[in-house]
C-alpha cells in the first residue's frame, strides 16, 4: 500500500516495523549463509561469528514484537494495516527460529572439528542448504515486493527440499554403515541437514504469511509433502 495515512506518525511506525522485519530477514539470511560456509570449510571462526550474530536476530525479533504490540495498542490498525502487523509478528518469529537453526549448525561445526570426515558427504548437505537459502531469499524478496506469486512459488517448491532431505538421509545412513568411524560426523551432519530442512519449512511459513498479507486470504491448500523418512525420524509436529 503506497497511499499515506492521515496521521503521518502511523505511516512512520508501520514503515519502521516493516523495515525491521526486512533487516531481521537480511540478518537471518546471512546467518544461514555463513553457517553453511562454516560447515563446508569446517571454519571455526565463521561458526563462532554465527553464534554471536544470532543474538542480534533475537534482539530484532523482540524489538519487532514490542513495536507491533505498541502499534496495536495505540493505533488500532485495521484491514491491510492489521494484516501488516500480524505478518510482522509471524515473520519475525519464523526468522528468529531460522537464526536458531543456523546457530545450531554452527555449534555442530565446532563439535565435529576434530572428527574424521569426508568432504563428499558434506557436499550433499551443502546442496540442500543452498536450496533452502534460495527459498529464504526468494520469500524475503516476495515480502519486500508484496509479490504473492513469488511467495506461492516458494511455498510449492519446498517439496524439493523435502525430497532432497530424504535422499540425503539415506546417503548418510549408508556412510555410517560402511565405516563406523563416520558415525559421529554423519550424525551431526544429519542434524545439520534436518536443521536446513526446517529452515525451508520456515521459508514456506513466511510464504503463507506473505500470501495472507497481500490477499487477505489464508492459504488453505495442503502443501505437497514427501515424508518417507518419518519411519526413521522423529515426527515433527509443527511443520
Amino acid at each position, binding site marked *: 500500500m503506497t497511499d499515506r495515512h492521515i496521521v503521518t506518525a502511523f505511516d512512520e511506525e508501520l514503515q519502521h516495523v516493516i523495515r525491521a522485519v526486512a533487516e531481521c530477514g537480511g540478518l537471518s539470511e546471512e546467518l544461514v549463509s555463513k553457517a553453511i560456509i562454516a560447515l563446508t570449510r569446517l571454519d571455526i571462526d565463521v561458526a563462532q561469528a554465527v553464534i554471536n550474530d544470532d543474538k542480534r536476530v533475537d534482539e530484532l525479533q523482540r524489538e519487532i514484537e514490542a513495536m507491533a504490540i505498541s502499534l496495536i495498542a495505540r493505533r488500532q490498525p*485495521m*484491514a491491510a494495516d492489521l*494484516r501488516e502487523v500480524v505478518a510482522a509478528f509471524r515473520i519475525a518469529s519464523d526468522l528468529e527460529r531460522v537464526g536458531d537453526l543456523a546457530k545450531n549448525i554452527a555449534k555442530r561445526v565446532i563439535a565435529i572439528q576434530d572428527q574424521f570426515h569426508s568432504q563428499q558427504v558434506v557436499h550433499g548437505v551443502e546442496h540442500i542448504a543452498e536450496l533452502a537459502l534460495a527459498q529464504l531469499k526468494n520469500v524475503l524478496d516476495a515480502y519486500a515486493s508484496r509479490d504473492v506469486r513469488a511467495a506461492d512459488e516458494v511455498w510449492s517448491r519446498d517439496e524439493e527440499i523435502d525430497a532432497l532431505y530424504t535422499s540425503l538421509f539415506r546417503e548418510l545412513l549408508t556412510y555410517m554403515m560402511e565405516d563406523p568411524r563416520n558415525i559421529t560426523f554423519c550424525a551431526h551432519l544429519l542434524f545439520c541437514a534436518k536443521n536446513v530442512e526446517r529452515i525451508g519449512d520456515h521459508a514456506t511459513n513466511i510464504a503463507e504469511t506473505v500470501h495472507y498479507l497481500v490477499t487477505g486470504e489464508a492459504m488453505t491448500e495442503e502443501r505437497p509433502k514427501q515424508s518417507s523418512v518419518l519411519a526413521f525420524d522423529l515426527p515433527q509436529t509443527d511443520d
Partner: protein
Amino acid sequence: MDMSIAKASVVAAETAPAGPVMKVIAEDVDVFYGDKHALKSVSIGVPERSVTAFIGPSGCGKSTFLRCINRMNDTIAGCRVIGSVTIDGQDIYDPSLDVVELRARVGMVFQKPNPFPKTIFENVAYGPRIHGLARSKVELEEIVMTSLGKAGLLEEVKDRLTEPGTGLSGGQQQRLCIARAIAVSPDVILMDEPCSSLDPIATARIEELIDELRANYTIIIVTHSMQQAARVSQTTAFFHLGILVEQGSTSQIFTNPHDRRTQDYITGRFG
C-alpha cells in the same frame, strides 16, 4: 432406505438459504434533498436479531439512509425518497401505512440523549400510554420496570423514578432513551451515534447493552467510531458519497475489505 427422501434432503441442504433472515430490505433507494442527490440506488438487507453498523465519512448518506427506515425523512421539507424499503416484507412507504405505528415498531435513539423534561417513570411510560399498550396502571408499571431493566438502568434508578429524567448522567440518560424506545416493543432499533457524547465507561455500558439487546431486536447503528462498529456489530456497511460501497460480515470488513474505498476509509487513509 428410501433414496428419494435422502436425495431430497441433500438438495434441500444445498438450496436452503445460507444467510440469516433479512428483517429490513431496501431496494434501489434514492433520496433527494431538493436538488441534492443524497443517496444513490442503495440496496441492502439487514439481518434480523443482530447488529448492523453503518459507517462512512460525514455526508456519506448513512444517517439519511437510517432515517429512511422509520420514515423520519418525511419530516424534512423537500426530501424525496424513491425505491422500496420493506420490514418483514411490508412496504413501509405504502400510503395506507400508519407512520405512527411504524415508528413504534422501529424505535430510534439519537446522538444526544434527549429525555423528556418529565420524571424518569413518565419518560418510559409515555410511549406505551399513547400507543395504548397498557390496559391498567399495574400493566403500565410493569412495562416501565421491564424496559428499565432491559436497558440496564433499573438498579440505578428504582428509588428515584419520580425524579426528572434530565437529572441523570449522560450515559444514564442515553439508557433511559433506550428504555423509552424498548417500552413500545419495537422490532427494530435505530441508533444514530448513540455514544458520541458519552465517556468511555458509559460508552462501554451502552455497547454491552446493545450486545444484550440483539438477542431480541434488530439493531442498526450509525457510528463514526470504526472501533465501535468493529466491537458491537456483526455486519458492517460502508457508505461513501451517497453510495453503499460494501457490506459484509464485520470481521471481513475490518480484516479484508474488498473495495479499495472501504480499505482507505477504515485504515485512516481518506483525504
